[in-house]
């Protein structure tokens, strides 16, 4: 990857990890999200988030999903106790 691409990737992976922990009860000790992986707890949570927010459920960090996660929102979780 060109350096900035890797950095950007790093950013979005951190963003998604924090977002899912805060709003979708992703367990904090979950292994960092690897973009290429197409299964595992983080991918499941991405699917859950995409479904709840009315996005196409791909399980992948596509542009729409990243854009949605960057939008201003309420701090109350979307699922959970």
């Amino acid at each position, binding site marked *: 990857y060109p350096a900035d691409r890797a950095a950007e990737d790093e950013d979005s992976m951190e963003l998604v990890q924090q977002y899912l922990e805060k709003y979708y009860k992703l367990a904090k000790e979950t292994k960092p999200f690897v973009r290429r992986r197409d299964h595992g707890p983080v991918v499941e949570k991405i699917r859950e988030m995409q479904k709840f927010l009315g996005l196409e459920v791909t399980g992948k960090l596509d542009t729409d999903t990243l854009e949605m996660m960057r939008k201003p929102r309420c701090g109350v979780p979307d699922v959970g*106790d």
Partner: protein
Amino acid sequence: FTTFPGMPKWRKTHLTYRIINYTLDLPRDAVDSAIEKALSLWQEVTPLTFSRADEGEADIKISFAVRDHGDFSPFDGPGNVLGHAYPPGPGIFGDAHFDDDEQWTRDTSGTNLFLVAAHELGHSLGLFHSADPSALMYPVYRADTDLSRFRLSQDDVDGIQSLYGSPPGSPDDPVAPTESVTSGPGTPAACDPALSFDAVSTLRGEILFFKDRYFWRKSLRTLEPGFYLISSFWPSLPSGLDAAYEDTSKDTVFLFKGNQFWAVRGTEAQAGYPKGIRTLGFPATVGKIDAALFDKEKKKTYFFVGDKYWRFDEKRQSMEPGFPRQIAEDFPGVDPKVDAAFEAFGFYYFFSGPSQLEFDPNARKVTHTLASGSWLNC
């Protein structure tokens, strides 16, 4: 819509609110009116009323803060989190906090305070987030909202009314008496030969026959059934139910409408409901239940959907494998679709339109054909 787990809600209809401090982005009266307008949105569709306190305790305390503000949920600077609020309850519960690192505005040039306040106060009243993008309770802020035409979505109204019912005196929810309702034009007639039921269930030895917004309550000790508004016993229940059954081992009646179900014990609606029927193990293809009956010997519940049925093991709390099965196969003589069903005296009673079948599950045959209204002393 969803409510918070455990369905916390205010046990009173008159609530106090207090604006603890103000953002410097707006004149104080603009903040006051934004909060007032946001509360009136919810007041219009519920029996709730609000009054402002200028000192001391209040049910809903509203404040502006930045970063860490003492509730273990720090704000994050400009953008991202705009605010948060806590479900009904004492102390911090019911309170709404707004991130003062946002640029709060009267219009949508910045972050519109009225819109965010209306959302957060929805949480203060007991609503969790909605997956309906057109709903106020959808978690993501929509800067493109047309404020001049803003209204609560039906999803928001259904959500808040599932907690508090509709405003008293409104056409769809008259102040419901607890004594029985006299039949008249616009109410179903017990002895109408064409009478059909939405749902039927036992309840502590009585039998409840649900129809539209009403139900007949038949005790085996009295001849005449009572006739009531559903909302006079259970304000949070919807009308036009699809199915109902009593799990006598739990002293609980479960009531179904669409893809949700509620639980009541006596007149007490149980916390944590409505739940989705998917939690019982139904596939996504099942959008609603036609009828349900609980067999107290077997401790199993039969759910009827179209020409099929499922069986749910109440002890294991799971749908049994090998279902759905065809109704016609295991209940010969019972034709789909079943409107309502219940079990009594070891027989299953199936209602379909104006007729009712008494079915002997041991002999596996229909033993009587009756009019649906036969229990109502017609």
